[in-house]
């Protein structure tokens, strides 16, 4: 996985690319810390370019959500496709996050 963090008005957007698996746990943690460091009002995770994610990735989103919520920052998952979308639906993440 690699990522790009962008300011987006008073919010922030992080664009994820490639595969998200247990091997990316540390990189994801770092990304999550950076994403909430500037106290954004909302955080969008752009998943359009994420090609694959395994169940470990679900856990990482939950950690991200926890960090963001501690700063009253809602998290939106945006544009999942293919297997990523299937997995998010299987785990009913639409009930935990706003998925657009």
């Amino acid at each position: 996985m690699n990522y790009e963090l962008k300011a987006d008005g008073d919010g922030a957007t992080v664009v994820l690319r490639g595969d998200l698996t247990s091997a990316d746990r540390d990189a994801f943690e770092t990304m999550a810390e950076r994403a909430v460091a500037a106290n954004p009002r909302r955080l969008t995770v752009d998943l359009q370019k994420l090609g694959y994610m395994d169940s470990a990735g679900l856990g990482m989103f939950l950690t991200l959500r926890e960090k963001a919520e501690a700063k009253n920052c809602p998290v939106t998952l945006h544009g999942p496709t293919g297997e990523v979308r299937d997995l998010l639906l299987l785990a009913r993440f639409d009930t935990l996050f706003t998925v657009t």
Partner: protein
Amino acid sequence: MSGQIRALVVDDHPLGRRLLEAHLRVAGYETLVAADGCEALEILEREGGRVDVVLLDRRMPRMDGIEVLARLKKDPVLAEIPVILQTAADGQDEVIEGIRAGAYYYLTKPFVPEVLLSITAAAVEDHVRYRRLRDEVQRQVAGLGMLSDATFHFRTVDEANRLAITLAATCPNPRSRVIGLSELLINAVEHGNLGITWQAKHELMARKALAEEIQARLDSTRWGRRYARLRFRRLADRIELTITDQGEGFDWRNYLQLSPDRAHDTHGRGIALARALSFDDLSYRGRGNEVVATVRLPETDIVPGRPTAASGDGMAAALRAVLTPTDRQTRRIEEAHGVTIGSMFEPRRAVGGDLWGLAPIDETRFAIWLGDMTGHGPEAALDAHSLHTCLRRMPPPGDPAEALSQLGDALAGLLPTGRYATMVLGIVDRGRDVFTYAASAIPHPCVIDPASGAIRQGDGSGVPAGIARGIRYPARELPFPPGATLFLHSDGIESIGREFGEAVGKEGVAAILAEALAGTPFDEALTRRFASLPRPLDDDLSAVWCRR
């Protein structure tokens, strides 16, 4: 082996003795001679394990060959020395008698020098190989005593030997088990997967090109991707070792006993040897590519819960054993409900985060579950252990939805953020012919029903259990009529192969289900699908099925 190979020549005819001696010396053997059976025994008792092979004449005054054999077989050290029995050209009866007395190698008198040397070399080679196996099994710590059910995959002769040593060490009398087990596992590689026929092996051995040919086939795309499988099961009174290869099979009936017409060959006695020396029962199945070897456990070994050394492997095996039902639990459910339950569990590492289980409810219902903790390895296994403990503390679930909701709450208090369980927890209800279940982010459970030709898919979606308190799961239902099979699996199956560029995927699982619908047992369909993948697998493989 260090130093020269020592052969003891036993023959009452001075000329015969001298001829044998001369040929063996020229070939580099050190020789000892005895003029009759009594003298032979004296030498053997004195030299003990320092003799590598005995060439024994069948007919001798004072003490004949068969009696010498009988005495040797009674001594634990001498019994292991290979004996080549020299019989008359018309001595079919002598061969039968010799086989009964425990001689596995034969030489016809008068002998052809090449045959003498090839059979002696074969006997010595086998002996050296067996001695090494026995020594290694001796050194093996008995830390796997609590291994209850495990599946191993192996590809090479070396892997076959290492596996034989490891598993023989878990059996009583490992020194005798290791020989037969090694023979069966090597057969699965050489004859099964690599397709080397008996005749081809004969020719390759004569040219001393067997090892080279094995390597060439292991390196080839045609044979080299095949894996053989060994399933180890410790039951209440016995250990069952089931060995399956991917070969064409063979007519095993001819090999269960060493037949007099093959007694003079340099090879082909492994199965007879395994049956006679190493196992209490040996039976082939189907076309001969599967064999079940049984080791009966002595009364003292049947006691459950005996303490064992806590080696790393032992711990892993013990942990794994806790996360799946015991054979007795499974059998009890099978008998009470007239169902057949099977499972396939192969963690990516020594331990994984998967578990499954069974619990009785009443006369027409029992609970069945399959779960998968996030991640792999020891951490996931410990989480799975927490899940297992929560499950065990709960009353048998009358209502799977309520049970999973409670379980989620319990886990939420135990697990840190980002760690959770995906699972399916359900009840097989024979009164209503349904499977009622609740699920959390697990691939859909399904029922294949050959009678209607349908594969019915359930719904595995749900928030992973344990990520937060207060999540309520809905109850769902699948029709589960008699004759149908319920199949549960974790998402590991779909991801397996991804690191090697050929993930099994949903399509792979669909293909396995289609095969099962067409009548292939799940066991076989799964083995076939996964056998060719490199080990260790890149994700935990777990599946459970229940046929009504």
